[in-house]
Structures are given as structure tokens and as C-alpha cells.
């Protein structure tokens, strides 16, 4: 039950190592010593520009995005008592993508695209959870099915937008659809959100553990179920929207990371949620590093790499659950 600090300390260490690796790798490789020199305020001006202005923000963005997605996934899984729930599978990323592409089609750029993606993700969340809720409560199978069907709908709209778009806009749009961290911008707000949410859910952790046993059991043990469910739902939506508006639609992080961690650490949310933030961040940092170096100097969309990891995991989970 106790001793959360050791696994978390190990995860922090791994995260820092991976971030160091990510910063020193790239089309112009730097040694760890050079990287360390720059981080401690030395190094040549060229190295400083490369690391402090290009690679470090990108690495931190990758970390924040991965952490947000993993925590959002873990929260949705508790809400639905189903380890298959994930923002991408529930169609939230599709809604965000439509929002972003419409903004790009209208010739907008930068923060406006992000804002539009954020609105699209929230709209998709409301649509899926509202439709699946109906008059009863969220049954996991109905929610997953609603999510899948709504996601297919978003897919059609995305294809429509792509077909209508002028050719010169297509590459940017495609990259956004597969997840791209090269335009992530300032990582500070997302990192702050991640820390804030982790701090917020920590006192709720035990209530979430009880909620994972079903709403009636939770109510019988003193949890006020409805407000808690709504809080998780809103948090998960905001986290997803923040992640998607920063880096495009990156799938399966919210599915793979919580699942792996539960296998190793059990299902105490007070440990799993901060661990998800760390491990999700680390996974995306590694995936983004791979995306940058595999066919350097060209870059792969990072969503391709997470999907290649995520699809087999999802199928394995589904296979094992029956």
C-alpha cells in the first residue's frame, strides 16, 4: 500500500535520462558532455541556440503532451471502469482535428489553430459522452461504440476537408493529423496544467479507487458519485483538448501507458496518476526522438510511432479480456 516514493523516484530518473538523450540526439548529434555544458550555462552560442531554443522546448512539449494524454486516459478508464477507454478511441482527437483543419482551411495559423482544436475536442467530448449517457448512465460498451462511430464521422469530415483544401496546405494538415511536435510552441502552460491536475487528483485518489469498483459500491462507501464523475469527465476532456491542441492527434498514449503501469504497480490511483504523467511524458519524448532521427534530416510524424506501439497493445487487451 505504501512506499509510493520509490517507483515515482525511479520514473523521475528515467524521465530525466530520456529527456537528456532526446536533447543530445538529432540531425546534429551532441555529446552528453556538450549538452550538460549548455544546460549549466556554458557551450558555444550555436550549441546554445540548438539546445535551448530548438530541442529543449520541443522535448518539454513532448513530455507535457504525453503526460497529459496518459493522465486523461487513466482518468477516463476509471470513469468508465474499462481499461480500453482512451481519448483517441473515444473520438475526441477526431473532433480536435476537424477544428484544427477548419482553422487551417480558413487560412488561420498558430494559436488560432490550437484554439480551434481545443474547441473541437471539447465539442467531441460533449457529443460522445452526451449521446452515450442518454437517459441512463455511462455503460462502457455503449460509450466505446458511440466513440468509435462518432470517430468514423469525424474521419469522413476530415477527408472532406482534405479533398477541398488547396494542395499547398495539405502537408501541414497531414502532419497535424498524425501528430507533430515541431510547432508545439511554449511548453510551460501545458506543463503547469499537468502539475496542477496531478496535485488536484491526489487527494481524490482513494475516492477514485473506490469509484473504480462501480458507482453503487462507491456510494455505499461514502463517495458522492455524481459530482466526482463530472469532475473526472471535465478534467479528462480539458487535458485531452490541451494535448491535442498542442501536438495534433497522437493516439494510444492514453491506452498503453496506464495499462503497462497497472501491470507493474497495481491500480492505486494515487500512484498510477502521477506515474502516468511521468511515464506518458517519457514515452512521447522517446517516440519524438525516434521520429526525429530515424530518417534524419527528414522527420516522421510522432503519431505514427505511438500508433505502431498502441495498436498491438489494444488488440492484445481486447484479446485477453474474453
Amino acid at each position, binding site marked *: 500500500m505504501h512506499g509510493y516514493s520509490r517507483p515515482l523516484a525511479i520514473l523521475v530518473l528515467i524521465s530525466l535520462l530520456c529527456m537528456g538523450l532526446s536533447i543530445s540526439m538529432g540531425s546534429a548529434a551532441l555529446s552528453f558532455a556538450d549538452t550538460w555544458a549548455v544546460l549549466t550555462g556554458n557551450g558555444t552560442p550555436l550549441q546554445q541556440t540548438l539546445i535551448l531554443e530548438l530541442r529543449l522546448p520541443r522535448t518539454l512539449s513532448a513530455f507535457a503532451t504525453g503526460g497529459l494524454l496518459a493522465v486523461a486516459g487513466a482518468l477516463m478508464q476509471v470513469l468508465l471502469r*474499462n481499461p480500453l477507454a482512451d481519448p483517441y478511441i473515444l473520438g475526441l482527437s477526431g473532433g480536435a482535428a476537424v477544428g484544427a483543419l477548419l482553422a487551417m482551411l480558413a487560412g488561420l495559423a498558430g494559436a488560432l489553430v490550437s484554439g480551434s482544436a481545443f474547441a473541437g475536442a471539447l465539442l467531441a467530448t460533449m457529443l460522445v459522452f452526451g449521446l452515450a449517457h442518454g437517459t441512463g448512465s455511462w455503460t462502457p460498451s455503449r460509450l466505446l461504440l458511440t466513440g468509435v462511430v462518432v470517430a468514423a464521422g469525424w474521419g469522413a469530415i476530415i477527408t472532406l476537408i482534405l479533398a477541398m483544401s488547396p494542395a499547398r496546405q495539405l502537408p501541414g494538415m497531414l502532419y497535424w493529423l498524425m501528430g507533430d511536435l515541431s510547432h508545439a510552441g511554449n511548453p510551460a502552460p501545458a506543463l503547469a496544467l499537468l502539475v496542477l491536475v496531478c496535485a488536484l487528483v491526489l487527494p481524490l485518489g*482513494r475516492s477514485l479507487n473506490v469509484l473504480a469498483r462501480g458507482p453503487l459500491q462507491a456510494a455505499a462507501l461514502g463517495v458522492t458519485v455524481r459530482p466526482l464523475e463530472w469532475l473526472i469527465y471535465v478534467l479528462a476532456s480539458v487535458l485531452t483538448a490541451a494535448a491535442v491542441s498542442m501536438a495534433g492527434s497522437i493516439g494510444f498514449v492514453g491506452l498503453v501507458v496506464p495499462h503497462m503501469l497497472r501491470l507493474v504497480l497495481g491500480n492505486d490511483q494515487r500512484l498510477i496518476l502521477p506515474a502516468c504523467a511521468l511515464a506518458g511524458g517519457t514515452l512521447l519524448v522517446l517516440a519524438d526522438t525516434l521520429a526525429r532521427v530515424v530518417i534524419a534530416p527528414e522527420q516522421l510524424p510522432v503519431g505514427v510511432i505511438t500508433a505502431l506501439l498502441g495498436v498491438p497493445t489494444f488488440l492484445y487487451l481486447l484479446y485477453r479480456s474474453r
Partner: protein
Amino acid sequence: MNPLQARDLVIDIPGRDDGEALNFIIQPGQIWGVLGPNGAGKTTLLHTLAGLREPRAGEVCLGEHRLMELKRKRISQQLGLVFQERQDGFPATVLETALIGRHPWLSPWQMETGNDEEIARRSLEQLDVAHLSDRMVNTLSGGERQRVAIATVLAQAPDTWLLDEPTNHLDLHHQVSVLQLLTEQAGAGNSVFMCLHDLNLAARWCDHLLLLYPNGEVCWGPAERMLAPVALERLYGQELLTVEVDGAPVFVPRKVW
């Protein structure tokens, strides 16, 4: 303790007339049994008494207060409920499961203490499942899971126990030891209110009975008055033979040749 009380209570079963309103107090030390055929509303009654469902009319009170006015946390410190069905979406060990019974007693910032773990372990011992502490709940047999569920409520330490078919899945010996445990609870000044399917267990261990007919009709009172064969035969639509053994009536279904 604050006794649980039904005041003009009508449970809400869709498509059924109101029937008779319930008016009773479960006093400290009493053991109540609810009898009725499938679909008569036993589980609905239990959930309504626990405040998990809105009644159609009337109210449930815990001491002076109406249940709906109390905070869930306050209620759960006084009222424990053993469910008939359990869902385990995520894997958990037996000990972790028993420990969630301590939830009502801990503040949000508090971790479970050694004392809580001690209580959970003792509860598992009393239900004869301590040797399974580290096993995953989803690998247990039905009867073992049932005993873990009862141990969880024992760790919760409520004054009033509500139980939905506590002897389900249990072998004869464990049925008896669970009922014996509930008798001890009542002896210590707590109260017990449970749905049962086994007439003979009810006749032997309950001091009050509530008969719930499928049409919404109800009657309740001291066990010896409620165990009239005619009433029970009408309740289940089943002819019964009655003999007396060891001071308690025993009911046997009449076999149709």
C-alpha cells in the same frame, strides 16, 4: 447508534402499484430478514434503505435525520451494504479490497494507516479468507468473493448492516459462520437487515421478518408471528410441510409426484 427507520416508505418499482407503505424501525440488537420471491423488490428495498435509490414516497431516516439530507460519508460511517453483485473492472488483491472498507473513516489527505490494515486483516481472518490476502479477487471462487465482500463491510464497521443474500454461493458451514458473525454483531448492539432466500436460515437466525409480495403487499413483525405456513405458501406460491426441530420451525417444500 442511530437506528434506521422507514417512514411511510414506498419503494419505486417501475410498473407496479404503490402497495402498502413501510413503517418500521430497525432497533439495536435486532436481526431482520426480508423474504420474498424473485422480482419482489428485495434488492430495491435494500438500496432504498441505503439511500442509493429514491423512494417513490415516504422517507428513510437514520436517527433524527432524513437519509437524503445526510452526507454520503456520514451515512457510510453508520450504514454498511453487502451487494449481491459486484463488478471488478480492474484487478485488485483481497487485502486491497478489504481496505476500501476503511474509506469512510479517512480524510482525503490521509493514507491508510497500519491500524486500518490491521482492521482489514482481522476482518479477513474472521471470514476465513486471510490466507487469500495477496490473491487477486478475480481469481477467487464465488463463495470466497462473497466472504471478501462481507469482510470489507466488517472493516467498515457500520452500526447497521444491510445485506443482499449474504449466504449466496456459500457452503453450509460458511453460511452458518456468516450468520453467527451477524448474530455477534447484533449482540454487540448493532443491527442487521438482510434479504434471504433460505426460509430455514431466516427462521433460525432472524428475530424479525418482512415478507415482500410481488404485488407490493408487505407485512412485517417478530419472526414467530410471521412464520405462519399459510402466509409463506402464498408468498412463494409453493406448498410447504412444517416440522419443528430444535425449537425452530423447519419448512420443506412438498414434492409433487
